[in-house]
Every structure is written in C-alpha cells, then in structure tokens.
C-alpha cells in the first residue's frame, strides 16, 4: 500500500503540516469564493455609489421627486434652473417600445423560419447572421443610422430625420438578436408530438403556428421582448447619435427628442462635479439602474410562468 502523504509528519515546517491535497482544496475554495465575493461587492457598490449620488438632489431638498419625474421642462442653466426629466423618460420609453414592436414580429418570424420551415438553412445561414448582428458595436449602428437612416427619413418625411423613429429603427436591429434567440429557444424546446398532432388533425402549418405554437410559447416570447426593451432602454451611444437630442417631450416620431442615456452622455462631461446639474444627471442614472432591476424582476416573473 502506498501512502505518499504521511499524516503523522512532524510539525515544524508550517507549509508541510497539511497534506498537499488539503492545501490545494483550501486554495481552490479561497480563490473561487474571493471571485464570487468580488462580484457581489461590485454590484452592491454600484447600487450604493450611484444611489448616494443620485438621491443627493432630493435629500438636499433642491428639487422634489415629482418635479423630476413629472416636470417637462429641462433648463439646467435657467433662472431658476428647471430639471424636468419627463422628456427623457418619454423619449426612452417610446424608442424602446417602438423598437420592440418592430423587432418582435421580425424575431418571431426568424425563429419560426429557423425551427419550423427551414431548420438547416436557418442553422447554417440565418443563425450566424443574427449572431453577427449581435456582435456589431453600437457606435457602428449609430454611424450607419446617422449616415443612412436619418438622411432617408429626412428625404421622405417632414422634419430633419433625427428623432424617435430613427432611434427606434436603429434599436430594433440591435435588439433583434436578443428577441430572436429567446424565441428560437422557446420554439425548439416544444414537445415534438405537439406539432405532428396538429398536422394529423388536418391543420395547416400556419394554423398550427398561430393557434398552438404562439399561445404555448407566449411567456417565453414575452421574456425575449422584455429583455430587448431592457437592452434598448439602456443603450446610449447609438441612440444619442440619431435622436437629435432636443430636450422636450416630442409630439411626433419625426421630431428631435432625447433619452435618459443620451442626456447623461452629452451633459455628464460638461458639468462640474457636485453642482446641482451634475447631481441631477446622477439621479437620471439612478432611474436607469432602478429600471434594470424592474426589467430583471419582470423577466423572472415571466420565466416562472413559462416554466409552468
């Protein structure tokens, strides 16, 4: 019997007091626990730092929460300065929802194509294409939006081309991969017998899709859409490049507007740290942060329903 590790080795050299395998397991455990702890610390400090900055304007009494959320005039340099964030909330919400409304049918159709109509072609061509779309950097989307979509809208519709519609179109392409991949997952995990059963009853493919497949996968499809909205809501540069950045509540889709992210991007670098203007920008960042939690919560709810 070989006993390469002697348990009764005399103490003295502190490192060899414990057998190698025990030291190894300690090291491993400490290492992975540290990595995880660091992640947890990070997320708490993100919340802590942004919240403490972002709550400052309210705590100091400079403005009230309703002033920020419901005020529709943004005049930080005015006399008195006005910080109404409604234009940005409206802008962020409308670009994200319109983008999702465009991306959802596209994503669903792409998923149906990949799972029900031409799986082979879908896997070899469409799937990689959509993954590539996901890999294209947002500034590149912004650049293309600025040099293709904005001029196109300007030439064919009233207005300058910049606005909610331009932002929503750019975002819809950006979130298409998210929506599509979740829809594809949902469709491909359908029980095989479901489809065959429906065909056997004489239903056409389309009837099967919209009477059977669409209702059963709806919670998962919604998950994809919410994830898409979440991504669109937080996207900064691509939107900022095409939306026009006028801080008022837009009355049409073709009018210049602004979002939470675009105003932060533009003004954060141009304000003095500690000033009220700067602090209110942090409040906007806090809203973005809270929205993320809300989206994660909704996604979790939907996933729970999809599992049932």
């Amino acid at each position, binding site marked *: 019997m070989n006993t390469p590790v002697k*348990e009764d080795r005399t103490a003295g050299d502190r490192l060899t007091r414990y057998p190698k395998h025990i030291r190894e397991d300690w090291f491993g455990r400490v290492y992975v626990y540290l990595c995880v702890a660091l992640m947890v610390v990070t997320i708490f400090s993100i919340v802590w730092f942004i919240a403490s900055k972002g709550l400052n304007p309210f705590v100091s009494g400079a403005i009230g929460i309703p002033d920020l959320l419901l005020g529709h005039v943004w005049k930080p340099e005015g006399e008195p300065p006005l910080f109404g964030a409604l234009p940005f909330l409206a802008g962020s919400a409308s670009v994200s929802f319109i983008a999702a409304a465009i991306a959802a049918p596209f994503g669903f159709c792409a998923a149906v194509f990949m799972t029900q109509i031409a799986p082979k072609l879908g896997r070899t061509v469409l799937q990689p294409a959509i993954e590539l779309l996901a890999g294209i950097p947002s500034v590149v989307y912004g650049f293309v939006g600025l040099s293709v979509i904005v001029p196109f809208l300007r030439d064919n519709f009233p207005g300058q081309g910049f606005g909610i519609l331009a932002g929503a179109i750019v975002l819809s392409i950006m979130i298409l991969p998210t929506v599509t991949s979740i829809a594809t997952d949902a469709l491909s995990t359908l029980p095989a017998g479901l489809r065959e059963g429906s065909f056997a009853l004489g239903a056409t493919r389309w009837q099967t899709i919209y009477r059977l497949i669409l209702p059963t996968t709806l919670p998962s499809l919604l998950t994809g859409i919410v994830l898409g909205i979440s991504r669109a809501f937080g996207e900064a540069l691509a939107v900022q490049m095409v939306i026009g950045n006028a801080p008022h509540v837009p009355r049409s889709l073709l009018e210049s507007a602004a979002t939470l992210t675009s105003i932060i991007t533009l003004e954060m670098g141009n304000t003095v740290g500690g000033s009220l203007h700067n602090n209110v920008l942090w409040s906007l960042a806090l809203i973005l942060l809270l929205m993320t939690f809300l989206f994660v919560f909704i996604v979790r709810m939907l996933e729970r329903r999809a599992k049932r």
Partner: protein
Amino acid sequence: MGEKAFFTKDLSVYYGEKQAIKKISMDFPSREVIALIGPSGCGKSTFLRSLNRMNDVIPGARVEGQIWIDGRDINDPATDVVLLRQKIGMVWQKPNPFHKSIYENIAFGPRYHGIRDKKKLDEIVESSLRKTALWDEVKDRLHRSALALSGGQQQRLCIARSVAVQPSILLMDEPASALDPVSTAKVEELIAELKREYCIVIVTHNMYQAARVSDKTAFFLMGDLVEYDTTQKIFTNPSHRSTDDYISGRFG
C-alpha cells in the same frame, strides 16, 4: 476464504426522499471477485458508487451506515476522502480516459501522489500497461492521444490508470457492457488476472459474465440484498425464489 478487504454495515443511500439502498451489510474478501447482479434500478450501481464515496458528486444523495476499510469508517466525517480514494480504484461503464496522451493517463495519478522521478514513472507506466495486457499494443505510441485507441483498449487503459496508483480494491461498474465480444473477453481475462492482487467488485447485468468471472455473487432487488453467497451456490442452488427467477431469466 481469505482475509476481509473491507465490509459494510447497515449501508443505506437516499436520493432525496427515496431510499435506493436499504441497510446492506456485506463482507468483501481480499483477492476475490465479487459480482453484484440484479435487474436495472435495483441499486447495485448506487451501492458500488457509495464504496468510494462517489455519490458525494451527486446532488441530493445521502449515505448512512458504515464502510470499514483498514480499520476506518469511510463515512466518518473525519476520514480524508481523497486519501481513501487512492486505495480504491474505479472503472466505469463507458471508457473515460483523460484527454491526454496514453502515458499521461497513467502517470498522472502516481505523479500527483508524489512520484517525480521520471524513471520510476516510466516503470509504473510500463508495469501498469503490462498488467492490463496493453503494453505490446501501445508501447510505440505512448505519447499519442488516448482517444485514438479503440473502445476496448480505452477501457483497459482506464483499468491500467486505476492500477497505477496501487489500490487494494477495484470497483467496476459494468466495465464490459459498452464493448464488443472480443474486447469483453479480454477485460474478463484481465479481471481473472488482477484478482491475484486486488479485491474486485464488479457490477454486471450479464449473468454469464458474473458466472464466468466471480467467486462470490450478490443478488440485489429493489435496494435490498436478497442473497450473497459463492457464485457456484447462487447459480446452481439459490436459496431464494427471486434469485432463481432472475438467474433463470424469468424476470421482467
């Protein structure tokens, strides 16, 4: 019958609420082959896996009772499971060589256990491969990938890998069920050869294999040990009706 290699006392295994093994006490003599047989789901593999605490890997599995090896209960929380496993080799149904060279597959264990000397390692590799009758087949390609070997060769390599760390017990979980008849025969010859040095516990669903290779046979049914006796007795004159039914094929 010679000395005891190890024994279990009231060993039970639970998966969640379900009791897969029900209070089994068994003695395992050294230098003999003990076959565990029974219909699938009877707990024979679970029992085997609890002998080197491999069930620790499975979430929700819980083991009660004792397993005594070398005067220690391996289920005792104070037992160092890593040291324990050096004494117990294991072979699986599907050959699972590491994705390394043939040489590395065998040298990996001994090197980890403190043998750094290259010459010594070479010797261990050679003797392990000779014991498993692989040496002549692979000696010219020791540093090629083990995955290039045939299934039967891979399985014998896995046996050689276990043997290289000098265990006293070998656990085999249906070691031949994924192999062709020729490879199966080779593995069975090997078992007959290896029992000179080791206590071998083999799970098999093939009753002829049990009859061919083992000295003692244990029949499991629904987590119970129904009968444990010499292979001769089990296959010619079993004491229990259900054993008889099973070995004569009158069983579902």
